[in-house]
Structure formats: C-alpha cells, structure tokens
C-alpha cells in the first residue's frame, strides 16, 4: 500500500529590517466543475461560444424562473471530496449571497455558506525532491468544499459609453475549495494549487485550465512573528495571527508565488514602520509585480446570506456516495507509489510520469509488457523532451504509445542499437510508420552475427599492432577497437557483442 511520509508545512521566514517574520497563507480555490450543463440550468458550459449563446431563462434571471440543481455537478463535488479524503455531508443546503452587479442577473449568487456539501479533507503537497532524492511531502488540511454559481463577464472596454455583459459563464458550477491557513510560503502555496489541480484532473472533476480561468485562487496572506503560529495552532485562536489581506482571482502558479512574496514584504514593511494592516481585498498586477487595494472592509459588501427558499436542502444517500466511491480512479500519489514499486522507477521519474494523468496513461501503454525503466527513460527524455521543445501536449504527440513501444521492442530484442533507435524515433516523429517496417526498409539492423563481427575485429587488430600493445597495457584503451569495429560495420554491429569479442581477442 501507499507509503507516504509527510510533514507539516514549513514556514518561510522573511527577514525584515528589524525582525524575522513568518508567513501564514490560506487559499480559496475556485474550480469550475467539469460538466456539460450549468449548476441550476440545462445551458451549455462550452468555452468560447458567441456571447450570450449559452443562457437559459433562469441564468438570465427572467421573472418567475426557478433553479433546479444539476445532479451531475453534485456527483462531481462528492467525487472531489472523496478524492481529498474528505467528509461528505449527506445534507447540505444552498444559500443566497446578495449583491448587485450587471453580470449577476439574479442579484444574488447561489452558494453554500452554512452547510457545504464537503467537510474536512486533506491534500499532500509535493515540494520536489529533498537531498536524499525523495520527494518532500507536506500535509495541507482542507476546511470545506462548497458548490456555487459562477458569475458572468462584464466588458468595459468595447465602447466608451457602454458596458457589455456576457452571461455564458453565469451559473456555471464552481467548487470552492477552502484550505486551512496551513500554508507557510509562496512555494508551498503554488505547490498546493498544483497538487490540487493534479488531483482534480485525475478525478475528471475540473479540467484545471488556469488560463481560461477554470481554476483560480483567492490567496489570504498574513505575517506573524516566529512562535505565534504555534500559539494559533494550539488554541485555534486567530488573534495570534496577523491581519490578513485577500489577493483575488489568481490564475497562474508563478503569479501566486510572486504576489504572496510581494504582499508579505508589503505587510512587513508597514508593521515595522509602526503601522497596522487593514483587512482588505487586493488585486495582483503582474506587469508591475505588486498588489493593489480593491476595496477595504468598510466598503465591503454586506452579502445578506440566507437560505435559498427556491431550493430544498440537498439530501443525498450514503449508497449514492458509495457508488461514486466505487468508481474512483487511481489518484496521483497511489499511481506514483505503484510506478516506484512495480517498475522500479526513481521517485523523480515516477513524479514526472504521474504529473499529468494523460502522461501516465501514455507511459503505461508504452511500459506494458516491457522494461519499465527503459520505457520511463524514453518517455521522459526522448518524448517529453521533444514535446516540450515543440510546445506540444501528449495528446498532440506525433509518436503514439504503440509506436514508441515498437521502438523499445526492437531495442529489447537487440535488433537495433540505441543510436539507431534515436534515428528511428526521429523518422517516426516526422514521417510516421511502423517501427519494425521502417527498420527493415532502411537497413537499421545491428549485426549480432558473430562471424561477421569476428572478421572485422580480427582485421582491425591485425592492422594496428601498436594499438594492441597499448591496449594490453591499459585495458581502458580497448574501447578504441570497439569504436573502429562499429565504424567499419557502419554502426550496425551490436556494441555489447563487439566489446566482449575485442576483450577476448586482446586477451584482457
């Protein structure tokens, strides 16, 4: 079974002008539920449709229209909860969060403030390899996950006098995944989001596309003196921690790190200057690399949350949850452990191969019935290297798993050398085809016929008596003969066979 060791998150310490400070970070990740229809309507969720093409009457808040919850979205939230080892609440409820904005047609967002569908869970965050090569893993606790509606989009730059509204996104289901303030540094925050994204993609509950905004994070940052966090942990009393600011709508791992770093230093500078932090919402400006105030607490909305009277409490049955649990896919940590155990891969290689589910599936198709380590080397070094170079995804790879497997089979049987295999891979990449047929058609066949090799070895030895003397004195120089033989045979001789024969003939 899984043998994961992890530690508590480690505080990042920033030295201010006067003192040392620690960071405390909590994240609210908004993940768009992978679903064809919206949370409370049958309208499509397809990205990139014409403005206002995917809008049902209820999405546009037409008079008298009523929401009906989409069962599939609920199932996706439950699946996500199970994937994060979280408590599933068989009874949850929807609340209205009231505020006015043109891209919020109802004048309220339907969310789950008081009774979320998922309770406490956890994420084991990978922080990369430690000095011993083993991945450093840290545990971040999840406080809750709730379902809510996304808002639409207001467009202010199309006309000097008017704003435009696109409701395609209005009512699309989001999962808000709220962490405990367990995260202690910018790198941990980014790694947490990356791991969450990886798990959601494995689960198929969110496509994790951060560029399209399908996964975005609100980051709460505060700073405190060393020792304060431990007091908070002991008492759960937030007053031991500093006042936090919330950086809204971050959709890049790099920006998350940069924003946290900037924000922490901004707060430290204020505190060391004798000032105090104002609890507020801030925006990160990636061009200037700084955070800016969006609105302060005084201007903050009073959302007037109350239970949505159009929706009955959401009651689900344990048997239904069990059915979902029975169809859970293998998750990244389990898969990685299996690769290390079954294929003998290193921690690093297993991490790389399991980072994306599609990559792992590809790797397993290549490795099936073959040597796992060789398969891993080829997938990681040749294939991923080439894909990266050409900015292609695994789905766009010109070389299929079956083709790469064919190459590995030719290597395994000794029919082609490693050098030939690389040439063959290049041909497959640019021209396609079946590896065995290409190798045959292009004479890519390494000579293992010992008679032919022996003749070549004998000829080289006979022609180079001086080199023979040197090699007998220093065995390391025998490689020169091997090189000459390979050259003479046009690279087709099996190097292992040549080596062995040279050594024997030279009496080494």
């Amino acid at each position: 079974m899984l043998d994961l060791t992890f530690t508590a998150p480690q505080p990042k310490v920033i030295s201010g002008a006067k003192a040392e400070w620690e960071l405390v970070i909590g994240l609210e990740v908004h993940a768009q539920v992978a679903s064809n229809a919206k949370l409370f309507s049958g309208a499509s969720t397809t990205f990139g449709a014409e403005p206002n093409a995917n809008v049902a009457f209820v999405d546009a808040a037409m008079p008298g229209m009523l929401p009906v919850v989409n069962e599939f979205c609920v199932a996706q939230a439950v699946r996500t909860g199970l994937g994060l080892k979280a408590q599933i609440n068989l009874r949850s409820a929807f609340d209205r969060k009231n505020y006015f904005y043109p891209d919020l047609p109802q004048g309220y967002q339907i969310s789950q403030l008081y009774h979320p569908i998922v309770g406490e869970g956890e994420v084991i965050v990978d922080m990369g390899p430690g000095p011993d090569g083993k991945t450093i893993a840290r545990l971040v606790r999840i406080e809750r996950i709730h379902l809510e509606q996304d808002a639409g989009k207001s467009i202010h730059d199309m006309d000097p006098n008017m704003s435009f509204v696109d409701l395609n996104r209005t009512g699309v289901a989001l999962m808000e995944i709220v962490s405990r303030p367990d995260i202690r540094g910018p790198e941990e925050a980014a790694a947490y989001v990356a791991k969450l994204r990886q798990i959601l993609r494995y689960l198929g509950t969110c496509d994790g596309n951060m560029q399209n905004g399908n996964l975005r994070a609100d980051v709460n940052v505060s700073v405190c003196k060393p020792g304060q966090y431990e007091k908070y942990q002991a008492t759960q009393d937030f007053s031991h921690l500093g006042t936090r600011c919330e950086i809204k709508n971050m959709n890049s791992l790099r920006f998350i790190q940069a924003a946290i770093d900037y924000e922490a230093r901004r707060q430290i500078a204020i505190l060391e200057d004798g000032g105090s932090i104002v609890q507020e919402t801030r925006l990160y400006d990636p061009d200037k690399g700084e955070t800016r105030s969006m609105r302060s607490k005084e201007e903050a909305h009073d959302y007037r949350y109350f239970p949505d009277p159009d929706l009955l409490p959401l009651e689900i049955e344990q048997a239904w949850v069990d059915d979902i649990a029975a169809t859970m896919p293998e998750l990244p940590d389990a898969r990685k452990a299996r690769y290390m155990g079954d294929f003998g891969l290193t921690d690093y290689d297993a991490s790389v191969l399991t980072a994306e589910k599609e990559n792992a599936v590809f790797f397993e198709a290549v490795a099936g019935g073959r040597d796992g380590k060789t398969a891993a080397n080829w997938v990681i070094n040749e294939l991923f290297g080439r894909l990266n170079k050409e900015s292609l995804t695994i789905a766009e790879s010109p070389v299929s798993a079956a083709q790469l497997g064919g190459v590995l089979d030719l290597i395994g049987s000794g029919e082609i050398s490693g050098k030939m295999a690389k040439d063959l891979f290049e041909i497959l990449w640019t021209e396609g085809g079946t590896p065995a047929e290409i190798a045959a058609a292009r004479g890519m066949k390494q000579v293992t016929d010992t008679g032919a090799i022996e003749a070549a070895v004998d000829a080289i030895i006979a022609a180079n008596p001086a080199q023979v003397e040197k090699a007998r004195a220093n065995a390391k120089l025998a490689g020169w003969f091997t090189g000459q033989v390979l050259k003479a045979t046009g690279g087709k001789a099996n190097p292992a066979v040549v080596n062995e024969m040279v050594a024997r003939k030279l009496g080494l």
Partner: protein
Amino acid sequence: MTALNQLTIAEARDALRKGDTTSLALTEACLAAIEGAGALNAFVHHTPEIAREQAKAADARLAAGDAPAMCGIPLGIKDLFCTKGVPSQAASNILKGFRPEYESTVTSQLFGAGAVMLGKLNMDEFAMGSSNESSCYGNAVNPWRRGNDTAELTPGGSSGGSAAAVAADLCLAATGTDTGGSIRQPAAFTGIVGIKPTYGRVSRWGIVAFASSLDQAGPMTKTVRDAAIMLGAMAGPDAKDSTCSDLPVPDFEAALTGDIRGKKIGIPREYRMDGMPAEIEKLWSDGAAMLKDAGAEIVDISLPHTKYALPAYYVVAPAEASSNLARYDGVRYGHRAKLGQGDGITEMYEKTRAEGFGKEVQRRVMVGTYVLSAGFYDAYYNRARKVRALIKRDFELAFEAGIDSILTPATPSSAFGLGEMADADPVAMYLNDVFTVTVNLAGLPGIAVPTGLDGRGLPLGLQLIGRPWEEGDLLNHAYVLERATGFVSKPAKWW
C-alpha cells in the same frame, strides 16, 4: 336563464358537454361583460384574440369528445403569472413592456386542459398589498357597495382584480396567488371562494416571485365545487420547481361528499381578537354551529404562537422579497431609467428602481434588506424562522390530536373603502392578514368561503384550514359550510 358569464365552472362544463352552449359563446359573453366593466379596472391586459382562438380549439375538443373539466372555460389570469407573448408585469412599472417568452406551469396546465384566457388581472404590485392600491394600473374596484353608498370599496389584495372579476361575472373563475392571504382576503371581501393549497401542491415556475417559501397559486371561483375542479387542473408535480411536491393530484371534486359526520373541527381561541366586530364573532359561531349540525364535532383548541405570526411574516416575506426583487435592475428587461451625464452603474440601479418600484414595494425591499443585514440577521430573520417553526408545530399538534380542520374568520372586517387606509400606519394595513398569514407560514391549505353579509350588505367569509395535502377533505368541509349558509348573494350591478 342565467347569462352565460354568470355560470359556474361546473354548470358551464356540463352545458358544454351536453352541447347546450359553446366555449366561444361563453367567451363572447365574458368579453362583453369585461367590455362593460371598465369601471372595475379588473382586467389590465385584454386578450380577446387569444380567447377566441382558444375557445374555438376547445369547442373542437369538446366536439371530439376529448374534453377535460376545464375545457372551454373562460378565465382571468392574475398579472403575476407569466403568459407567453402577453404582457406580464406583476402590476409594476419596473416590468413595463415585459412579454415573457415562456408560459407559467399553472397557465400552461390550464390552457393544456382547454381553458380560455380572457386577459390579465389587476393586483397589488408584486402581490404586496391588501387593497390592490399599490398597482401600477391603479386599483381594481370591488363590485360590492355599502347599500346605497356609492363610495368605492377595495376588492382586497393582492388578488383584487381576480376577486372583482369573478364576483362581477366577468369570467367564470380566475387564478390567484397567496403569500399571506392574497387569495383568501379578496375572496372574502367579494363574496367568492378562494383556496390557497398546501405549499408545494402547485408549481411556482413562471409566477413572478414575491416570497418564495410562502407563495402558492390557487383558484378563485364562484363555488367550492369550482375551486375543486380548477385546483385539480392547476396542481401537480413539476420538475422545474424544486419545492413542488411529487404527490399525485387526487380527484378533489369527488371528495365533495357533503358528509362530515364525526369530523373534528377546531376553533382556535387565539383567533378571537380584542375588538373583533360582533358580526364577525357571530359569523364565526354561526359557522361552527352549522358544521356541528352537519355532524362534526366542534373542539376548542389552542394555537399558542399565533400572536407572533404577523411580525414573523413581515420579517420573512420582505427578506425573501428583497432578494427576489434584486433582479429588477434595468439591465436585461423592463424599465431602465434615463441616465444623466456621468451616471454609472450605481446611478442606473438607484434611478431605475426608484422609478420602477412603488412605495409599498420599496418599503418591503428596505425592510427585507435590513432584517437580513449583518448584525440584525439573528435578531430578526433567524428569530422569525424559529417562530415560524413554532407556528407550524402548533398546527401539527392540533392535527395530531385528531383535529380535521380549523375554522376561523377570513378577515377582521368586511371590505373597506379605497383610500381609507391611505394615511394609516402601514401596520394597520398588514393587520388584514392576521387570520391568514399563519397558514402560509405553516405551509397549510386554507380556504375562504362566503358565509354571510354584514350590516351594510357586504360579504363576509370564514376560513377553514386543513391538514397538509388534504385539500380534498378541506374542500368537503368548505362545501358543507357553503351549502349550510346558502350564500347566493351577488353584487347589484352599478358599473
């Protein structure tokens, strides 16, 4: 012979099935009556073309022998119902010009059963009011008058147009909605029958929302039998409304056996208000006596939390309304204020809503916003929810003790004069709902039945409250009361 527009649904149904008349003839009679009743201001949108077309289609169905009970029956539809392609404004300026692209479930079921729409009926704006005076169309007028006094009276509210239209025989029946008494109070003020079904019996889809946890649609009819027939056509499961029950709809008309022997009818002592007019007192005790004569057992009961119902209602209903009405922002449909130079989105909201909403709606939106706001939520909204649970419990205990229905007055008075309450404290107007709001808070079915006239010749009604989902039984009790009182009075035509 009775004029066609004066028929009840049951009479018209039987006549249509026998071929004694046609839906088109009924419809024309109603259209003519509407034409001559402008003074009542009951119909605010007229749809004669739709009516004639539906009537012809109904006649074809009747001829083919495929005719549900409501087939060919001309109805008025409260303006709160969204009717496809027909103005549906909830009597508010903020929905000026709004024609929905969809048909409410209730009207869709009625028209599917062959009913005919004569037009849309006046009401209080967003169903907020008890006198129909908050309508953007001006008030509807009660066809009843105090004897020879020509002062115009309210038909009640919010379904005032529906009540006036049915009482004046402008249609055979009408749809109403009831959030705190909006079917039962106007029914009582105009001498007709109105039932608010159990919450969840009738779909709310396509009905402009006032307070979602309280709103229910129901029929407003000339007789109890008609209420049973029409409710059957309006009710039923609807996948588009999560709060609508999956329970099948029984044959309500078949429940009208007239036999209530052995039934226990509760008289709640908390409904005997200080200063209650003697004639209401008498009406109530006469009603109880009649039910007793019919073989029922009259039992004094207690519903101890009744006195908290009105304040709880006037917290819960505005709270929900403040949120439900947030969508009327001028962005997508209805009224949008003309903006000045430099006005932004905030000014657009403020001006649009200030111009589009009348005073009573504004008052309730503000009250609702206040009771939900941070710092006041627990003191008002949460406390009101707790009170609501206690009121519901009061009724449950009574029913558990074997009570079959509860008899109360429907209103604290007969219809009052239009404008009489104009300068009164709004709370005085809210007192109209004192006997009816408990029923909405508890989600129970309640029916108002006309049982007599007051000293000035105005109708008075009694209310029967039933067990949840037992509208059939409740209608049967009402049927007995209706037969026993023999109420047949009609307003003298002055319009």
